[in-house]
Every structure is written in C-alpha cells, then in structure tokens.
C-alpha cells in the first residue's frame, strides 16, 4: 500500500511540498472543527460521530507523514473498535442519549480558561521551535522496519502491553459484570 502523496513525490519535487501543505491544511481544519464540535455538542451520539472525523483526520495525517501502518491501525482499532465500543456504551447507558444541556456555564468557563492558558503556553513554546525544519518524506516507512523494532528492541514493552490488554479485558469484565 503506497500513498498517492509518495507517488507524487517520486514524480516531482517542488510541487510536492505545496501539495502536501494543502492536504495538511485541509485535514487539520477538518480535525480542529470536528474536535471542537465533539467537545461542545450536547448530543452524545453526535459527539461520537464527530470523534470519528477527528480520528480519521489523524489517520490521514499519518499517511501524510508516511506512516501507513499506524494509519491503518488507527482506522482498524480506533474507528473500527473503539467507536463501536463507545456507541455500545451510549446504548447501554440509555439515560443520556439525548441532549445534555445541563453543563454549567461556570464549569465551561473554568475549562476554557485552563485550555486557553495551556494553548498560550504551548503556543509560546512551539511557535519558535522547529519552525524551519522541513520534513522530507521521500520513502514510506516499511512495515518490516516497524515490526522488527517491535519484536526486537521493544519486545519487553510489547509484552507489557499485551499483558495490559489482557488485564484490561479481565478488568472490564469483572467491573461491569452483574453480581
């Protein structure tokens, strides 16, 4: 699976940069808007659908960055599994299917204050750094390299994650099971 962007990269050099930037801008806009809607909409189901858009956007960004494998995993695991899980959760806790209007203004204000503060600090920190670091994606990352790394260098972490997943599985069953 080779991304069109990379194919284009093989074709021409200068235009590629512009094309990538356009892609990036569009996807980023979609992501930000979706994320904002996701955290502000009062309908839970809508929120989940907005989240799907954010996640899909992230997957697109991964492809832009030449990491197809991560992108695929993102689609499979997140959109395929997690969102379904969310929807299940929403169905099961049927109480708040509808509008959730009761969020206090006070809390919103507090949360937005913190978020803005955070944005300012991160913005200050980031605006100057890496502002002229060009990313040149000339060759997609091979699956092989990723799997080699996972199964050699990061084998311990991998095993730990496996155990974690198992534990989560069991934990979720234990927590949610009816007495």
């Amino acid at each position, binding site marked *: 699976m080779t991304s069109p962007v990379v194919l284009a990269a093989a074709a021409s050099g200068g235009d590629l940069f512009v094309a990538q*930037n356009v892609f990036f801008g569009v996807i980023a806009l979609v*992501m*930000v808007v979706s*994320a*904002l809607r*996701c*955290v502000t909409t009062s309908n*839970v189901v809508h929120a*989940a659908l907005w989240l799907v858009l954010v*996640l899909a956007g*992230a997957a697109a*960004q*991964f492809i832009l*960055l*030449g*990491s197809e*494998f*991560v992108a695929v995993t993102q689609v499979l*695991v*997140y959109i395929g*599994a*997690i969102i379904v*899980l969310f929807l*299940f*959760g929403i169905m*099961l*806790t049927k*109480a708040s299917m509808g509008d*959730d209007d*009761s969020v206090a203004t006070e*809390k*919103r204000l*507090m*949360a937005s204050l913190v*978020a803005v503060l*955070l*944005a300012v600090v*991160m*913005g200050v920190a980031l605006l100057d*750094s*890496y502002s*002229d*670091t*060009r*990313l040149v994606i000339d060759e997609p*990352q091979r699956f092989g*390299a*990723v799997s080699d*790394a*996972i199964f050699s260098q*990061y084998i311990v972490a991998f095993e730990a*994650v496996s155990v*974690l*997943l198992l534990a*989560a*599985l069991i*934990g*979720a069953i234990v*927590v*949610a099971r009816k007495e």
Partner: protein
Amino acid sequence: MILNQFLLLAAVLFCIGVYGVLARRNGIMVLMSVEIILNSVNINLVAFGAFRDNVAGEVFALFVIAVAAAEVGIGLAIVLLIYRNRRSIDLTEADLLKG
C-alpha cells in the same frame, strides 16, 4: 511540510481535549475527549518519528493506540457500573474523592 505544523495541530487538539475533559459532565464524553488528547500525542510521536527518520515514534504510537483501547474498555466499564449503581453518569455527582 514543516514539523512545526504538526506540533501546533497537536497542541490545539490537546487543548480542545483538555477542555472537553474539564467541561463535560457526561462520563462517556469525557472519555471521548481523552481520546482526542491521545490522538494529539500520537500525531506528535509520528511527526517526530518522521523527522528523526526513526521507527521509535511509530512504535510508540502503536503502543498508545493499544493502551487507549484498554483504557476505553475499562473506562466504559466503570461508566457502566456508575450508571448501574446511580442511574446517572453525571460526573459532577461523582464526588467519591470527597474526604
């Protein structure tokens, strides 16, 4: 593309996620906001991986996805449990941390 773009995007997403975590009353929506935060982190990881030409970024992004899955599973289970016990998943009522 410039590395900085991705970092800024991630930062914005992160802040939005934080807002969601802090402002939402519905437990499920809080979990969704957490997912946004995790995704912003993933973007950072992959972007740096590409910048350094190093697979470590991707590997860790994958780990984060796996952990996120586990987290959502557990989180939803807890929400379910709260719902079952209290018939509500309003987090403002979850004040069990109170001394």
